[in-house]
């Protein structure tokens, strides 16, 4: 018990003595920073002060525009700025004006004849992927129907358009007229309603133009005379066979490009409203219809095929598809008129499989 206290006492006394006299916690003195001092004369000191004087303020200083950008604070350095040499401004001599350029060598391009013909654009390949669907310009603008409370028949070609109906008063053969001669006037032709869809009864009278171009006639088969031998008979048989194999309903002209097809597809799909929670969303329907040359639906839209769903769901899917086709036709789908044979009859399949996942 006492031995321990003794050992502890000695140890503490030793430690205190070592701290006091041994310099255990004495740190090395910090290094002194030595700076050289030079003795200068009063004249030199005045010269230094004069050099540091601020320049005379000038009133002709443009107000600096405060920059919007954040100004970075420059790093502070211990080095003193060097005295700035202010050079004496010298008046600048006016330079000689620039020499007028010699334009004699330049010749204006000769004006070219402007024609109404559209430039011939290179036809893209059928398989070229396009983002924007190609649309062919419609060559003939459609007449805008005029609507009036009372329908007015088409006036004669020489009739002047006026609000009032007035018959022409012409001098008779003798050159005299009972009244002052007047020009025949008539109101502009109008209809009491906008006919949005051709009626069946009006269909034949709607246009006297043929709906399709007449195909060139096939040359009549030349029947050989019996006296010309076997070769001629074989040739005649071949000619007859070739004429029978021709298909009169084949469309003429190049087929629609993928861009043109995409144009029609995009036009219809933006009107196709899909109810993804309904049973009709399980049905894929194909509808068929005919278009007239202005791109409008002619007649009924018929259900061609349907897969999935019960009868009620099929009917709903068909109605939705029909609405899409009819709603988005507006004034007619924009398709190239020169390829009408290729898009006269259309079948569109509405497949909602991807939509169901949304």
């Amino acid at each position, binding site marked *: 018990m006492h031995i321990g206290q003794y050992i502890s006492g000695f140890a503490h006394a030793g430690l205190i003595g070592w701290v006091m006299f041994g310099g255990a916690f004495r740190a090395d003195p910090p290094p002194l920073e030595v700076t050289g001092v030079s003795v200068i004369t009063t004249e030199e000191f005045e010269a230094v002060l004069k050099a540091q004087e601020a320049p005379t303020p000038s009133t002709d200083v443009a107000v600096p525009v405060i920059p919007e950008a954040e100004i970075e604070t420059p790093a502070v350095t211990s080095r003193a700025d060097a005295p700035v040499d202010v050079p004496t401004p010298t008046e600048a001599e006016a330079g000689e004006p620039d020499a007028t350029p010699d334009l004699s060598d330049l010749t204006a391009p000769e004006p070219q004849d402007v024609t109404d013909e559209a430039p011939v654009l290179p036809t893209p390949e059928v398989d070229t992927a396009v983002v924007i669907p190609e649309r062919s310009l419609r060559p003939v603008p459609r007449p805008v129907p005029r609507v009036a409370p009372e329908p007015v028949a088409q006036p004669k070609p020489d009739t002047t358009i006026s609000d009032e109906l007035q018959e022409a008063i012409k001098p008779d053969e003798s050159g005299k007229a009972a009244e002052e001669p007047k020009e025949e006037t008539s109101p502009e032709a109008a209809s009491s*309603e*906008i006919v*949005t*869809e051709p009626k069946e009864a009006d269909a034949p009278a709607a246009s006297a133009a043929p709906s399709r171009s007449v195909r060139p006639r096939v040359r009549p088969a030349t029947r050989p005379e019996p006296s010309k031998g076997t070769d001629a008979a074989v040739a005649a048989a071949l000619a007859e066979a070739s004429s029978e194999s021709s*298909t009169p*309903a*084949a*469309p003429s002209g190049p*087929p*629609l490009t993928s861009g043109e*097809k995409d144009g*029609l*597809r995009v036009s*219809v*799909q*933006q*009107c*196709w*409203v*899909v*109810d*993804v*929670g*309904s*049973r*009709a969303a399980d049905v894929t329907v194909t509808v*068929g219809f005919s278009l007239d040359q202005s791109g409008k639906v002619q007649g009924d839209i018929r259900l061609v095929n349907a897969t999935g769903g019960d009868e*009620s*769901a099929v*009917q*709903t899917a068909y*109605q939705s598809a*029909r*609405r*899409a086709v*009819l*709603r988005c036709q507006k004034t007619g789908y924009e398709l190239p008129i020169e390829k009408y044979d*290729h*898009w*006269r*009859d*259309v*079948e*569109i*399949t*509405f*497949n*909602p*499989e*991807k*939509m169901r996942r*949304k």
Partner: protein
Amino acid sequence: MIRLLATLLMASMMLGQMALAQNGPLRIEITEGVIEPLPFAVPDFVAESQGSNQISKDLSRVIAEDLSGTGLFREIPASAHISTITHFGSPVQFADWKAINAQALVTGGVTVSGNNLEVKFRVWDVFAGQELGNGLRFKGTVDGWRRMAHKVADAVYSRITGEGGYFDSRVVYVSETGPKNDRKKRLAIMDYDGANLQYLTDSSAIVLAPRFSPTGDRVLYTSYETGFPQIYVVDVGSVRKKALSNDTGSMSFAPRFSPDGKSVLMSVTEGGNADLFRMDIASGKRQRLTNGPSIETAPSYSPDGSKIVFESDRSGTQQLYIMGSNGGEATRISFGQGRYGTPVWSPRGDLIAFTKQNKGRFHIGVMRTDGSDERLLTSSFLDEGPTWAPNGRVIMFTRETRGAEGVSVLYSVDVSGRNLKRVRLNGGGSDPSWSPLQ
């Protein structure tokens, strides 16, 4: 040589076929459409008798609200209409309705004679320029004009979507008033849109989990009237109740009618273990359907009555199982993360709605009957207790907000996950059950 000639012949025949194929109609496939409400117009129905002016306007408004409330239709306001319908039999000026992009048009006429009300209407596909189906005429009383409006809306919905409607239906639920620590609960019944509220019980005893019968004339529910949870049935018309189970030695809860309405599925707890039973309502006899140490509860029949879906913790966590209507081997159908409960078979038979708890959030979801194609429709602090609309298109459920001041209210959501909206209620509510069409 002969092979070469045959190959050339085949190739030429194929080319010929391809050439012929190009001569057919232009064929296009569309796989992308738009998901947006269908614009429709319901001009005020024509008042065809004196005293029917107001009711014709009110009818039109309820029909429009029913259709717009589905999220599938968007009403074009009357201020945008170009045409007015002055006679029910007048031809429709389709161009005027096309001009405002109305894709469907509902026209109608109303005749009031004493307390008798007659409503007739037609639905038009504007862009096809033809009527959808034939005109219909409903007769009833002036008092029931709202039901008449719901019936017209159901018919319109059905003509356009090809599916049955759900507007002429009711919802029974637990009405909740007061703070969380002293909440008064009683059974309430209302139209699907919150109108015509009526209470079936008082707030003297805690009531839970009301369930409509397949014909909508009775309601099953669980009550703590005796201190133990027991199952009662109440007649909706007369509001008379009767205890179906009165066994003081056990607790019975989570009842649900069979599709024929003659028996009741329920969960009964005996000795701390809950199993599924079927009770014949007429005789009161019970048949055990499950027998195991795990907790089986929340049974629900398939529409044809051949199968039962229920929740069980037999695998260690709460999951969904399907078994035959007489019990037997059960097949687990839920395998996702979290716990699944309160399964309800869709009236269509193709989906099962459920409550899912995962990572501290509750969800209402649907999956196919084999457990595939699971989709979560909602997410919140507490969503639970789904019930199907009679057409299997909409799900109603309870949503409770967080905290001591939190309240329970009813929400509905389309089966596609769209059109989530709060149900118009007088106060709080929970545990909804949707009736069949009336």
